[in-house]
C-alpha cells in the first residue's frame, strides 16, 4: 500500500509539468495552427533566467519565478510577432519547420548568455511529509511537489476559467475555430495570437521551473521529454478541445508510473525499463483506431 501511495506521489511532479506544457502547446496549436517544437527550449530558457536570478542576484525563488516567466513570455511573443506574423502564408509544414529552426536558435543563444556550466537550482520548500499507515509501512511525499501541484492547479484552473468566461477566452475560441472569420467579426486576431504565445511561454517557464526545482539538472534539452509527452497527449486527447489534451497529459506520466508499479508487484522488475515503451505503444494503438483523439470531435472536410 505504501509503495502504491509512493508511486502516486512520485507522479505528481511529472503530471504537473506535462499538463502545463500540454496546455501551452494546445494554446499555440489552436491559435497559430502549428505544433510548437520550440516549446521545450523556450521553457528551458525561462528556467535559465530563474536560475541566474537565483544565483547571481540572490533573489528568492518566488520573485525569480515571475521574472523567468516574463522572459520566456517575451521570447514567445517575439517569435510570434517577428516570425509567424510575417510568415502567414507559409504552409503548415513550413511553420513546423520554423519552430524546429527556433530550437537550434535558442539552444545556440543559451550558452552565449548564461555560460556553459549547468546552473544550480533551489526547491520551493524543503522537507518531506511522512505518513505511517495502519500496516506499519511509511509513505512520504516531498513538500516541494505539493507546492508544485498547487501552482499547476491554480494556473491551469485560471486559464480554463478565463477561456470559458472571459472576453479574451471567447476571442481565443473564435480564432481557434476560424481565424479568418474571427478577423472579419472584429476580433484582433494578431493580439489574440500574440497573447496565446506569451501565455504559452510563461506556462512553459513555470513547467521548467517546477522540473528544475524537483532536482533535475537544467540544460537546453531538459524539457524535450515532456514536450514529446505533450505532443502525444495532444493527439491522444484530440486537439479539437482544450480539456482533452490536458486530461491525456495527466494520464501519460501516471500510466508510466503505474506500469512500473504493476510490473514490480507482479515480480518482474526487469521489465521496469519497458514501461515507457508500453505506454507509447498503447497510445499509438489508440490513436490508430481513433485518429481524432479520445475526446476529439470528428471534423468533416470539404473536398
Amino acid at each position, binding site marked *: 500500500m505504501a509503495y502504491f501511495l509512493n508511486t502516486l506521489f512520485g507522479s505528481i511532479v511529472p503530471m504537473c509539468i506535462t499538463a502545463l506544457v500540454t496546455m501551452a502547446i494546445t494554446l499555440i496549436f489552436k491559435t497559430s495552427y*502549428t505544433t510548437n517544437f520550440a516549446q521545450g527550449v523556450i521553457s528551458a530558457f525561462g528556467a535559465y533566467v530563474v536560475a541566474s536570478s537565483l544565483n547571481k542576484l540572490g533573489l528568492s525563488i518566488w520573485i525569480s519565478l515571475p521574472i523567468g516567466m516574463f522572459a520566456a513570455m517575451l521570447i514567445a511573443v517575439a517569435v510570434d510577432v517577428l516570425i509567424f506574423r510575417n510568415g502567414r502564408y*507559409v504552409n503548415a*509544414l513550413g511553420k513546423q519547420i520554423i519552430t524546429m*529552426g527556433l530550437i*537550434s536558435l535558442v*539552444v*545556440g543563444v543559451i550558452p*552565449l548568455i548564461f555560460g556553459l556550466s549547468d546552473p544550480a537550482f533551489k526547491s520551493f520548500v524543503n522537507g518531506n511529509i511522512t505518513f505511517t499507515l495502519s500496516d506499519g509501512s511509511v509513505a512520504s511525499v516531498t513538500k516541494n511537489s505539493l507546492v508544485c501541484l498547487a501552482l499547476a492547479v491554480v494556473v491551469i484552473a485560471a486559464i480554463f476559467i478565463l477561456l470559458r468566461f472571459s472576453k479574451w477566452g471567447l476571442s481565443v475560441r473564435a480564432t481557434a475555430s476560424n481565424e479568418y472569420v474571427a478577423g472579419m467579426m472584429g476580433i484582433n486576431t494578431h493580439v489574440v495570437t500574440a497573447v496565446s504565445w506569451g501565455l504559452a511561454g510563461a506556462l512553459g517557464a513555470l513547467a521548467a521551473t517546477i522540473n528544475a526545482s524537483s532536482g533535475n539538472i537544467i540544460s537546453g*534539452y531538459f524539457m524535450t521529454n515532456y514536450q514529446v509527452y505533450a505532443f*502525444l497527449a495532444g493527439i491522444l486527447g484530440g486537439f479539437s478541445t482544450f480539456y482533452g489534451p490536458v486530461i491525456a497529459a495527466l494520464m501519460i506520466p501516471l500510466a508510466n508510473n503505474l506500469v512500473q508499479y504493476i510490473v514490480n508487484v507482479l515480480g518482474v522488475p526487469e521489465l521496469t525499463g519497458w514501461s515507457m515503451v508500453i505506454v507509447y505503444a498503447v497510445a499509438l494503438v489508440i490513436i490508430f483506431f481513433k485518429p481524432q483523439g479520445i475526446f476529439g470531435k470528428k471534423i468533416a472536410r470539404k473536398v
Partner: protein
Amino acid sequence: MDKRLAKNYALLGKQTTDGDGLTACLRSFFKNSTMQIILFAIIMSVVGALSQEKILPYSWLSAFASTFSYAIAAVGFCLLMGYSGLASLGTGGFIGIGTYSVHYIMSEAGLPFGIALITAIAVAVLIGVIVGFISLRIEGIYLVILTLGLSEILRNLYMVLEDRITISTNPNLFGIEITRQMSLYVVVVVLAVIMIITGNIINSPTGRAMLAMKNSTAAAQAMGISLMKYRLMAFIICTVYASISGTMLIIVVRGAMASQGTGFYALITSLNILAAVIIGGYKSIWGAVFGSFIMYGMQTVVLNNIKFLAENPVIITFVSGILVIIVVMFYPGGLAQLVLELRGKARKLRIKMKEARYGKDLG
C-alpha cells in the same frame, strides 16, 4: 518571362553544341547525373586519401565520413518530403535500427557485416510498412507527431536493450577489413549508389506518381495512383536509407549511447536531418548532401579554421537555426534553388556579353 529564358537557353544550346566533337562529348558526359555522382565519389575519395596522408587536415576524414553517413538518411528524407509530401520525425529512431543490427549481428553473433546490413534493411522495411499504414489514416501535423512517438518508442527500446554499444571488431566486407580510416571510402561508395538509385526513382513513373500524390491526393487517386502503394513505398525507402545510414554511422563512430539527449536516436538528429534537407532544398538530392555538410561537416572543415568560431562552437547551432527560418520564410527552394537561379543569371550574362560583342542573333 519564362518563355524568354527558355529561348535564351535554346540559343545557348545551339551555339555551344556547334563546337568540336570532343567538347560536346565531354559536356554531355558531365551533364549525365550518374557521371556527376561518380565524379563526386572519386573526388571525395581523393580528398579522403589526401587527408589520410595528412596533406589535408586529418580531422576531415571522420568529419566527411559522418557527414556522408547522415547524408544517406537525408537523401531518403528528401524523397519522402520533397516528392511524396510526407514528413516524419522518426529518422533518429530509424538510424538506431542500423546501429543495433550491426551491434547484435556483427559484434555479438560474430557474423559478417553483409548479414548485419541485410538484417538492418529487413527490419527497416518492416518498420516502414508500419509507418506507411499509419500514414494512410493520419495526415499532416498529426503524422509528424506520431512518427516522433514511434521514434521515442524505438529509443526507449534501445535504452532497455543495451544503452551503450561499442563496436570493437573491424567490420569485414568481401574479405577486406574496414578500419576507421577506411570507413570514408565505404560511406562514399554507399552514398553514391544510394544517390544514383534515388535519382532513378525520382525520374521513373514511381517518382512521378509520388509527385502527383504530393500535389493532390484526390487528383492522384482519380488518375489511378494507389495511395497505399506509393505511401508505403516512400516510407519504406526513407526508413531503409535511415537504417543504412545507421550502419554507416556506427562503422565511422564505433559507439553510441541511447539515453544521451543529444545522441543518434534523439529528436535532435531527426530535426537536424530535416534542417539539412530544408537548407539544401527539399527537392534536390545534391541539396540534401550539401545540407548535411552544413549541419554536420562545416564545423570541422570550415569553421574551426576561423579563430572566433573555433572558440565559440555554439554559434554554428545558432546560425543553422537562423538559416532554417530564413530559408523557409523567404527562400522555400533552399540552396538548390539559389544555385539554379545563379546559373540562370550567369547564362543570361554570358548571352548579353556575346550580344554586346557580336551583335544580336536574329535567327
